[in-house]
């Protein structure tokens, strides 16, 4: 990697003692990480815990960090490993759609929602549920690629697999999802 990307430069500044650079990295990436981890785990509290864990690892890596890839790819690799470990925990709680969650259907008292918006919201909820049923790596590959906008090369680096494997995972994930939404998607 010739020139570190902007985030890697922030990380290097943090490594040099600039604490505000760490704060900036949190502000830039906490929301995308939370979105990714929530889609992986379908559990907001667990996703928040893992966002903290990702940044704790970034903090601890300040003395040995070397910008070898995009900073965001490194972040997503940490997040993916943590998410896969979390999903494999034997006593992990079953993920349930929470009525308090951001994907919750509109409740009475929120005012009338336009029908189109409501239909879109319900479709998004169904997709999120079906997404959660995909095999872990298919889900991770699709989320990183189609939602987070990573290239296949970046997804491959995050998942520590080949680009051709990423291509196959993303394709299988999409094919499975659209088959479940034959009527609506």
């Amino acid at each position, binding site marked *: 990697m010739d020139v570190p990307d902007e985030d890697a430069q922030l990380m290097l500044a943090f490594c040099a003692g600039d604490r505000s650079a760490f*704060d900036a990295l*949190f502000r830039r990436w*906490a*929301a995308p990480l*939370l*979105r990714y981890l*929530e889609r992986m785990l379908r559990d*907001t509290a667990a*996703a*928040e815990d893992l*966002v*903290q864990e990702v*940044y*704790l690892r970034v*903090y*601890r890596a300040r003395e040995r960090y070397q910008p070898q890839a995009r900073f965001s790819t490194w972040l997503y690799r940490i997040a993916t490993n943590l998410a896969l470990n979390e999903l494999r925990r034997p006593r992990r709680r079953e993920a349930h759609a929470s009525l308090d*969650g*951001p*994907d919750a259907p509109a409740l009475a008292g929120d005012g009338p929602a336009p029908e189109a918006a409501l239909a*879109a*919201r319900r*479709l*998004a909820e169904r*997709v*999120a549920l079906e997404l959660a049923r995909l095999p872990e790596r298919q889900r991770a590959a*699709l989320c990183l*690629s*189609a*939602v987070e906008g990573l*290239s*296949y090369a970046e997804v491959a680096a995050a998942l520590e697999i080949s680009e051709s494997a990423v*291509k*196959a995972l*993303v*394709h299988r994930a*999409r*094919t499975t*999802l*659209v088959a479940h*939404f034959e009527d609506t*998607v």
Partner: protein
Amino acid sequence: MPNATLDCPEFEADLSALLDGELAPERAAAVRLHASGCAPCRDQLARFERLAGVLASAPSPSVAASLFARLEARIAMASASDTGVREAAPAPAPGRAWLRRAATAVAAAAAGVALYLAIASREPAPRADEPFPRQIARRPEPAASVPAPGDLAALPDEDLGIALELETVEDFEVIANLELLELLLAAEAG
């Protein structure tokens, strides 16, 4: 019309990569040309595109304002633990290992207090319809299982042995959360 039996598996496998802009230009042109004349592939590509729209438009969670504060508390714990290890590091000589372990335990004890604060700050306000009161937030002695730095010598031998075995903040997290676990189990049993 392309031969669906022979050509479609090959092209169909590339539809997703086409949508993601991951095909070389020549291959992308070939797949587009195929899809323009092959109804199944064209329909599948259209379904992929609609799915991409749904995935992109799904609501994103907002980052709670307290998340950074909780992270800071965990960093403070980690720093306390690291400092303890570093300060004890000059005494690695055989026979002095207990000193490093004790220093780590003391640092982690301080971290336990930070952990308690982090846990307490996460507790939402009690609701009137809660089945049992949230006793954790009202505990008078935060992280009571974690010995204060000056209390190690006062511990019974068996407890001191356990305390000195605790190497990491994570160990203290377990200890600090035992009370929480016990209270939850008691509430469930009750």
